[in-house]
Structure formats: structure tokens, C-alpha cells
């Protein structure tokens, strides 16, 4: 296990439990997602693992080092991309990477090669000597991703890596992350409130709500538990005996519509359509992690609030960190 978290808890001001008795472990080469709304405690959890916030209770090991006993070695084992930009915009991209290499003890003989490779990976080579001030948000995020990798960490922490990025930049960041995992076999912990992102990137996700892990598993398993649904509209009164169809796990009748819960909707569709004498429209609904989130927390992650929420979380985490 490259990361093992044991009963990690952070209490602010003696009453606000930002992170509450969290346990999980991560295998080498795994991409692990912490999925939850803004303010769920994801960033606090990550900062404790990165040894920049002290836990109130519990501990964790990263790459075999205890975060309380050997914080220096933990920091040497991880790379982190913070939610907010943390590069110096008065310096060039290349200079930011060079300072990082120096601070993280990369041998001098390897600076040039590693920096150039990192820049190439995130496609910033042509802009290497521009000041970061002139970079777009997406470029800056990519630079910081490259920076987080420069010292070849065992575990990479990504805090909302695509927050505030346009869809194209987001997909590029995803590609980099995926190619990294494939090429270098590093483990990744990623926090996000984008369902799609967690689904796309993560081998396993933990759904985190109010500082607690509500459920943790593979995205596909979690979605499978919800089941797939077939929605028939305009069925009128001609509803067959649904209990006779054994593959239907659950059904619900609405005015003029029926929703069936099945394991494999595309496979069962034919049988369902044959059973219904008449209907106007049919819809297959595949489960999303949003449905999973809803099931376990009773709430939805509202993606529409992302921009505002992100801003609020920034203020909140700033305050909390004090």
C-alpha cells in the first residue's frame, strides 16, 4: 500500500469537523478519487497527507513514511498540484521548474533533461521562457502539473486539477494524467467535484460528504448498484404485469409513464418493448456517479454551482488553514 490513512480527523475551532475519521488505502499505480461537493473536506484531507496541515487525530503513511513522524520524507515522496495557482508569475515557466528541481533535491546534472521532458509532456516547450504572468489558466495548471512531477514522486496529489478550465483544457489535463499513470506507474490521489472527471480517471472513488467517506469502490461497481433504467412514456393504461418479468429489479409507475430498473438495459430492452402493447417514447437511463452520490448522501452535487462554489471553497480553505 503506497498510502494508508488511519482515522484521520481534522477539527477546526474545536467544533467544525472538516475531516472525520477517514480510513482508506491506495495501491501502487492506482488512481484514487475523492469525490464530493465543495467544502466536503477533500482539500483539508489532501493537505494533511501533504504535511502542510497537522491532523487533530489519526495519522497516515505515504510511501511507508508516517506523516507525523517523518514529514520531510513524505514531502520528498509526493508531488502536489494545488487548487489555486502556486507558481511565481514574475518568473518564467522554466525558472519555476528549475527552482522546484533545486528545492526538491534533483541532482544538478539532471535538471536540464528533466525540465525539458516535463515541458514537452505538457506541451509548453515553446512558452518555456515566457513569464508565467502571460500564461492562460490552463497553461499554468499544466506547468504546475509538470512541476509536481519533476522530482519523480511516488504519489501525485491533484487538488481539483481542472477547476475553472475550459472543456478543451480539461480534456488535455486528463490525457496528461492518464499517460503519466501508464508511463510512470505512479499513484494518484485526485480530488474533484466533477462526476465526469472521477468516472473518467479513477480506478476507485471515495464519495466524501461532510468530512466522512460515504462509500468507496470502483465507479463501475457503484454505478452497477444503482442499476440501469428504462423509462417508457405514454403507456396509457396498457401496463403489463411487471412482476411477471423476472429481470425487473424494481419499477415505479408515474402518470402515463413507467420506470423500470434492470441490470443491463440494452439487453433487456427487446423483452420490455415486446411486453408493452403501446407506448410513445422509450429512454434508457444509464447511472452516473451523481446518482450514486444522491443515493448515499441524499443530495446532489450541483455542478452548476461550481464556479461560485469554487470561489467560496477558496475563501473557506484559506480561512480554515489559518
Amino acid at each position, binding site marked *: 500500500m503506497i498510502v494508508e490513512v488511519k482515522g484521520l480527523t481534522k477539527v477546526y475551532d474545536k467544533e467544525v469537523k472538516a475531516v472525520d475519521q477517514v480510513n482508506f488505502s491506495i495501491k501502487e499505480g492506482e488512481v484514487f478519487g475523492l469525490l464530493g461537493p465543495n467544502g466536503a473536506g477533500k482539500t483539508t484531507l489532501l*493537505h494533511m497527507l*501533504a*504535511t*502542510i*496541515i497537522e491532523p487533530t487525530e489519526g495519522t497516515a503513511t505515504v510511501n511507508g513514511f508516517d506523516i507525523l513522524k517523518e514529514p*520531510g*520524507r513524505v*514531502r*520528498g515522496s*509526493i508531488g*502536489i498540484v*494545488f487548487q*489555486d*495557482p*502556486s*507558481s*511565481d*508569475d*514574475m*518568473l518564467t515557466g522554466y*525558472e519555476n521548474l*528549475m*527552482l*522546484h528541481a*533545486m*528545492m*526538491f*533535491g534533483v541532482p*544538478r546534472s539532471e535538471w536540464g533533461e528533466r525540465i525539458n521532458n516535463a515541458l514537452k509532456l505538457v506541451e509548453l516547450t515553446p512558452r518555456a521562457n515566457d513569464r508565467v504572468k502571460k500564461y492562460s489558466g490552463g497553461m499554468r495548471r499544466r506547468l504546475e502539473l509538470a*512541476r509536481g512531477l519533476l522530482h519523480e514522486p511516488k504519489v501525485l496529489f491533484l487538488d481539483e486539477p481542472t477547476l475553472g478550465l475550459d472543456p478543451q483544457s480539461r480534456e488535455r489535463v486528463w490525457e496528461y494524467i492518464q499517460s503519466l499513470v501508464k508511463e510512470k506507474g505512479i499513484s494518484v490521489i485526485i480530488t474533484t467535484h466533477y462526476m465526469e472527471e472521477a468516472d473518467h480517471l479513477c480506478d476507485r472513488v471515495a464519495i466524501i460528504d461532510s468530512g466522512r467517506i460515504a462509500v468507496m469502490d470502483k465507479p463501475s461497481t457503484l454505478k452497477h448498484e444503482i442499476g440501469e433504467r428504462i423509462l417508457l412514456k405514454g403507456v396509457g393504461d396498457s401496463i403489463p404485469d411487471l412482476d411477471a418479468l423476472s429481470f425487473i429489479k424494481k419499477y415505479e409507475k408515474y402518470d402515463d409513464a413507467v420506470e423500470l430498473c434492470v441490470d443491463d438495459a440494452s439487453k433487456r430492452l427487446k423483452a420490455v418493448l415486446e411486453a408493452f402493447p403501446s407506448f410513445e417514447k422509450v429512454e434508457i437511463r444509464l447511472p452516473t456517479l451523481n446518482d450514486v452520490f444522491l443515493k448515499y448522501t441524499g443530495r446532489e452535487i450541483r455542478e452548476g454551482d461550481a464556479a461560485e462554489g469554487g470561489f467560496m471553497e477558496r475563501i473557506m480553505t484559506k480561512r480554515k*488553514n*489559518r
Partner: protein
Amino acid sequence: MSEISGLLALWLREVKVFTREHSRVVSSVFTPILWLVVFGGGLGSSIVIQGMDYQTFIYPGIVSMSILFTSVFFGIYIVWDRKIDFLKEVLVAPLRRSTIFMGKVIGGMTDSMIQGTIVLLLGPLIGIGYTPLILLKAYIVVFVMAAGLVSLGLVIGSQMESPEGFGMVVSFVVYPLFFLSGALFPIDNLPTWLGYFVLLDPLTYGVDALRGAMLGTSRFPYLLDLGVITAFAAFMIALGTQAFKRMKT
């Protein structure tokens, strides 16, 4: 080994930023010139102190002032690092907190020494004659003062959460240190109460040492002055190291 290269990285960053932020350099040179030319020249037209031109008399004080302002402000700039989150990147590096502190100190001292050099270059223009020995003595004082004052700024900055406290620091730390230092008046015949405050101000000894070295008139021997500011610097460095250990992101 990585501690040394980390130290170097932090220093390099400060120097690069400093040389790129021209406004910071220009404004911090402009203020001493204003004091020297307008205040020194204006008041100097009607008073003479210890048999010398007032402008000449306050010159060592103005050199100290430029070191004071640059050094303390540099320290407080760490609030800015926190604001742009660069501080997190530094704190997550596998470096000791004391290394991070010292990196900042030597970075700030470099800024102050550059600043100090510019102001020292103005000396001959108002009739200060330098010899290599005078310059050496002056540079030693400037160096030690910068170490103490940058550390003081960093101690304050590491405890400050937002730039809003900046004005408070100027009013309650920087100005008292400056006005009580005897930069603008001789400290021999002060009212008793004021004399005590003046003697408590570490900058007093820096100004006195510079005045002794440059103008040949001083209240205390050079080595005593140097001893006091060295003790002050050592104390502030120790305090700063502790402050950085407890510093939060």
C-alpha cells in the same frame, strides 16, 4: 546537500523577482533621496549640528533608513507569497523550515545590500569622503543591520494573515524604529525619557556606527555598536527560525 540547493533556490527567486520589479527598486531609492535632499536640504538651510551641515549629519541615518524600510518590507512580502500560494509550494518542499527561513533572509539581505549600495553611492555627492576602510566599516554595519531587520520583517510577516496589517506595522514598528534611532537628531542631550527609548532602539546603534565610520562622530565605540546590532540580528534570526517552524500555510 539538498538543503543548500534549496537555500540557493529561494535566494535565486528573490533576486530574480527583485531585479524584475523595477517599481520596488525605484520607490525605495526615491524615499531616501527625498529625505536627504528636501528634508536635509530644507532644514539644513537654517541649522548646523555638531559643527557640520545638517544634510551631512543625517546622511548615515538615511542610509540606515533605506536599509530599515527595504528589509522590514521585504519580510512582510511573505504575506504576498501566501496570497499567491507560492508559499505552499515552498512549504511542501522537503526542506527544513530553518532552511526556508534562511533562504528568505539571504534573499532579503541581498535586496537591502543593493539598495544600501545605491544610497551609499550618493554620499560623495553631498561631500562624504570614502576610504576603503570607511566603506568596509559601513558595509559591515549595513550587512548586520539588514540581517536583523529582514528577520524582524519575516517574523512579523509569518504571523500576518493578510496584507491589511501592513499599515499597522509601518506605524507601530517601522516609524518608531526610524524616529527613535537618532537618524535625524543627535542623541547626546535628549530628555531622559526619550533617551531611554532611543537606547532601546537597535537601529540607534547602526546609525551611530555609520556616523562614526563616515563622519568621525559617534556616541559609542564602533565595536560596541556592532556588538549590539549583531546581538539583535542573532536574536531575530533565532526568533524567525522558531516563527517559521510554527507557521501555517
